[in-house]
């Protein structure tokens, strides 16, 4: 666990005490560190870093100003904004909803609970294009829900709201499945203690349950966010794909590829990776800070 451990000072012949340089790795009692780290590094390098590295090489064909021109193009900027903005909103929406579903599935016993539990995974299992077609059928202006929404003046499919619906759909299982095991393992005694101390049900959930679930909720949200950013199949059907309005960045990449603008496509790709990576690191830091509280 402790990577940085101060060693006892070494007394030099001259009599001065100098701190021994910190070792960066405390020897673990578990054997196989070298081997497992080696495999981890090679695998991560081969599967993750190498393709990303190649991607990062690609845009330079068009030069720095070519990249800048591509990324500052109003259509590209709008697509990036739509992708990240709506992905973030969808992931955030899934936070409380996923918590509620996980809560219902773990805390109550009712007929059909197992079936509902299995239903949660369905967005995982469905080919995303199928999900897209299904959602579009439902939310199109002629579809049952779309027509209903249109009556009260809300446009669902072929609008940013449509993208949002698709992204909520595909992100939900990540949140539920992140929270569920933690909620299951939560010590009931802690909640009972809160009750005996006079906490109402709401106080118990707000002060005791949710803080304990915080890291899991956050991890679910970041997974859902990461998934939403890269989502293509389900969104393109329902979005309508109007440039500047409902065109997502992954679609723009495909469009650029079809126009043989590989460098331009790669430039958007690199930008997406950079933003995603930054966002995920930010969430990870927050999550670690939450998890560390009281667990040192």
């Amino acid at each position, binding site marked *: 666990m402790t990577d940085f451990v101060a060693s006892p000072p070494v007394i030099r012949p001259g009599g001065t005490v100098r701190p021994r340089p910190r070792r960066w790795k405390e020897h673990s009692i578990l054997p196989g560190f070298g081997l497992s780290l080696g495999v981890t590094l090679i695998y991560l390098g081969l599967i993750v870093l190498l393709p990303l590295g190649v991607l990062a090489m690609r845009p330079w064909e068009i030069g720095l100003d070519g990249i800048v021109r591509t990324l500052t193009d109003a259509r590209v900027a709008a697509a990036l904004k739509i992708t990240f903005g709506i992905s973030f909103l969808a992931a955030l929406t899934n936070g409380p909803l996923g918590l509620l579903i996980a809560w219902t599935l773990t805390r109550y016993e009712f007929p059909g609970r197992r079936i509902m539990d299995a239903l949660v995974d369905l967005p995982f299992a469905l080919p995303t294009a199928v999900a897209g077609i299904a959602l579009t059928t439902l939310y199109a202006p002629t579809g049952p829900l779309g027509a209903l929404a249109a009556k009260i003046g809300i446009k669902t499919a072929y609008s940013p709201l449509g993208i949002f619906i698709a992204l909520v759909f595909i992100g939900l299982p990540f949140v539920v499945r992140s929270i569920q095991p933690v909620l299951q393992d939560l010590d009931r005694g*802690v909640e009972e*203690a809160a009750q*005996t*101390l*006079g906490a109402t049900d709401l*106080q118990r959930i707000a002060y005791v349950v949710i*803080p304990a679930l*915080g890291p899991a909720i956050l991890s679910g949200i970041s997974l859902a966010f990461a998934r939403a950013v890269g989502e293509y199949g389900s969104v393109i059907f329902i979005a309508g794909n109007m440039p500047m309005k409902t065109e997502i960045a992954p679609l723009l990449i495909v469009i650029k590829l079809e126009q043989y603008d590989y460098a331009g496509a790669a430039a958007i790709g690199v930008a997406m990776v950079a933003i995603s990576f930054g966002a995920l690191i930010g969430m990870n830091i927050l999550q670690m800070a939450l998890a560390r509280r*009281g667990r*040192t």
Partner: protein
Amino acid sequence: MNFRRAESTDERLALEIKGVSKQYGRFPALKDVSLQAKDKEFLALLGPSGSGKTTLLRVLAGLEEPDAGEVRFGGEDFLALPVRLRKVGMVFQHYALFRHMTVAQNIAFGLTVRRRSEKPSKSEIGDRVADLLSLVQLEGLEKRFPSQLSGGQRQRVALARALAIEPKMLLLDEPFGALDAQVRRELRRWLRELHDKAGVTTVFVTHDQEEALDLADRVAILKDGQLIQLGTPNEVYEHPATPFVFDFLGAACRMPGVVDGSRLLVADWESEAPKGAPQGPVDVFFRPDEVAFAPLDGAGLAAEVRGVTQRGPDVRIDCLIEGQTVELQAHGPTLPPGVATGLPVRIKPLRPQVYAAG
């Protein structure tokens, strides 16, 4: 300190439990349990695992609902009150501290969740936490998280947290269960002092007879969901109501015997039967250290010493009586006269308890 001063134990009844039953599926956890605790009394619920003692404690806290029966506290119908309005301070077996809160936040929890109109001010809460920290001797640890404390310290935080709400009753579920023997003994004394200082009616659950006898004003012994005996530690130890209680409260030796009129016959030893002994075939129980080694020609059970082992201050003497090996105990370091491996002796139980043979 804002605690009510402890006067001499009030004879007024505080807790009344009447005919409480609880069933888990087809398994009866409590069967028609009735008992009372006086105000400011320290009551132990003692029993082996599965005896229903924890279930009874949870019924008192409101965490379990009994199927039948009545629970009153200070005359008030306790079962009609939800957990959070009962104002009982409960200490859980594994302390159940809030791990994301500091020690001070843990202790203050019961005060901070109060309704605005009843909530003390920030500085009052701070004072109260400081008071409690000094009461449980944890000054200076208020900023720590539970994970940075030892088991004994966590236990005291849990106790301070329970006391913070000025509970009407303190409930302790195996409070020393997870601690090592040394810490246990220290905390036990300290808990008793704390109880006397705080003057709260306390019910505590334990499976450790030594702990119950040492700590409690009265001990309720439970078995299979039933109350077997209720009395002061002395009463239950001196006059166990059933062979089970005798056995559970300490080491026991058991011999078959017969009561005939006022005489008790065990093998070749005849003595006066204890008062109220049942007639006919009986089981005779005695403690292995409550025996006298009689001269060979005197009265007593004929026995042969099989082995002698020194165990610290005590000596264990393995005897063969009537074909049965019995472990007796004598206070060392010197052996009782006439006792040595291989020698015949006569053994006279000093205070045999007699139960109808079952």
